[in-house]
């Protein structure tokens, strides 16, 4: 009898503790919207944001817009409909996204942009982006050094709707064009895509077999280009990427791709969630809407310390 009573008590206590762990109201929701997770960079953003949101006691709604502005608009509607308290967004186009972010704002939901800017201020609560120009200059300076300030090279450019494609290309050229002996024999967009970079590189090589280097707007395109170069027996061509993915890290470690530039994607996504949390709790937006995060050059020296878009000390 005693035993039973104790068991009941224990059971009752257990029930109570479950009760406190599950409040009557569901946790506040934060929507996390990024491009496709096929690119590990965007996946790292989503994972970083989701982890931070859960850590801070939120429910996370993770969605992908696949760089389609219409789909992004629908996802914003979904976030509004689900009563999200904040949106973490890596957007689908600097111009096309302004209306979508405005729509969320009109519905009383602040957006915290990461990675890519939009061409408007006062619409998003925050725009936390990598200093792509600074990063591109780092990558280009290393590229120039590796090339010995001379030789034929190819540039692979990202998706045109993404500001970062333009800014990186600009950062590259502001450095490389100062060296007249470096000759760009081809420049093509491979839309951030590994498979597209592979096929573009194949055809570029047919027209320009004599190339010494490839500078790429991101790591997935660098991976595609390097695979095409290896397939053509040109594995010694100097390839430099941008992002700091684990794939490129492994390639650098094994002497393939020569360098990349790390964007702190994981930390950036987490910072956005922290700012969203502060906004939800205090109603205060960050002091500066536009915030730049510096990038870091990754070479064989520090590549071993790179893991999931973060550099271990």
């Amino acid at each position, binding site marked *: 009898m005693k035993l039973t009573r104790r068991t009941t008590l224990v059971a009752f206590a257990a029930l109570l503790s479950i009760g406190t762990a599950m409040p009557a109201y569901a946790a506040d929701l934060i929507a996390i919207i990024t491009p496709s997770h096929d690119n590990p960079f965007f996946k790292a953003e989503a994972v970083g944001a989701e982890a931070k949101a859960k850590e801070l006691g939120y429910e996370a709604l993770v969605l992908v817009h696949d760089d389609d502005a219409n789909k992004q608009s629908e996802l914003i509607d979904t976030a509004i409909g689900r009563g999200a308290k904040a949106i973490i967004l890596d957007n689908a186009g600097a111009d096309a996204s302004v209306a979508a972010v405005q729509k969320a704002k009109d519905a009383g939901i602040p957006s915290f942009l990461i990675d890519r800017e939009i061409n408007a201020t006062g619409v998003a609560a925050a725009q936390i982006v990598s200093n792509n*120009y*600074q990063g591109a200059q780092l990558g280009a*300076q290393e590229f120039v050094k590796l090339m010995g300030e001379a030789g034929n090279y190819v540039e692979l450019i990202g998706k045109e709707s993404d500001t970062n494609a*333009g800014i990186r290309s600009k950062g590259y050229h*502001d450095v490389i064009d100062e060296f*007249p002996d470096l000759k760009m024999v081809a420049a093509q967009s491979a839309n951030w895509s590994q498979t597209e970079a592979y096929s573009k590189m194949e055809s570029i090589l047919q027209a320009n077999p004599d190339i010494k280097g490839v500078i790429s707007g991101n790591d997935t395109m660098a991976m595609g280009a390097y695979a095409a170069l290896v397939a053509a027996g040109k594995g010694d061509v100097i390839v430099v990427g941008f992002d700091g993915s684990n794939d490129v890290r492994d390639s650098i470690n094994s002497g393939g791709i020569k360098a990349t530039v790390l964007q702190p994607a994981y930390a950036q996504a987490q910072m956005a969630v922290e700012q969203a949390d502060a906004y939800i709790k205090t109603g205060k937006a960050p002091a500066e809407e536009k915030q730049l995060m510096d990038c870091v050059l990754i070479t064989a020296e520090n590549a071993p310390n790179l893991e999931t878009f973060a550099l271990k000390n």
Partner: protein
Amino acid sequence: MFKRLTCLIVAATAGALSLSACKILPTPSGDEVDAAAFNPDAMVTEIWTSRVIPYLQAKAASFAEVEAAAKADPEAAGTKYGNPNKQASSPWTYAVTLDGTIVGSNTKSRAATIDVDVDGDGKADARVQFGPAMRGTSLRDSLDFVNFNEFTNQIDFAQYGKAFNTYVDSTVLSKLPREDLEGRTAKVLGAYSTNKGSDLPLVTPAEVEIGPKP
């Protein structure tokens, strides 16, 4: 000045419709409209003598003083010798003066540099960019009246940063001698940011005086 900047930015975003209000010549394609409306070189030229040089002169201290302060407390040093409103994750950029002797140079590279000894021990203490190719945006980043939030996007902000380097190269560096530099004196007013590597601190100059051959 930034009122005008805002006006230019509005013009650039709004496109041809509002261009007339800013007295900007209309140009057909999107890119050209942007280039016509946003002119970083003109913006830098306009503020160089009136604001940039006086600011750097007022903020700068000797290399020895800035280095010691930066090592002791980067943030306090950055506030004193640089831009306290800098982006949170960017390194501090300090205004600095160098007064010493050139002990090394690399003018073969397009990104030429001179190495300056300021404490008289015969060893280089700082490396000064000598153009025509120049790295980074130290001059822009040292200025406390420049704010990224007042630019349409990173591209404009970057072009603005680059315009400082271009201006210094065309008005100062391209007029300096490039041969037989070792042993000559160098006086420099410029800016640099702390670097973690083992390389010499890289100073981007705003003013440079090279002494006669010894």
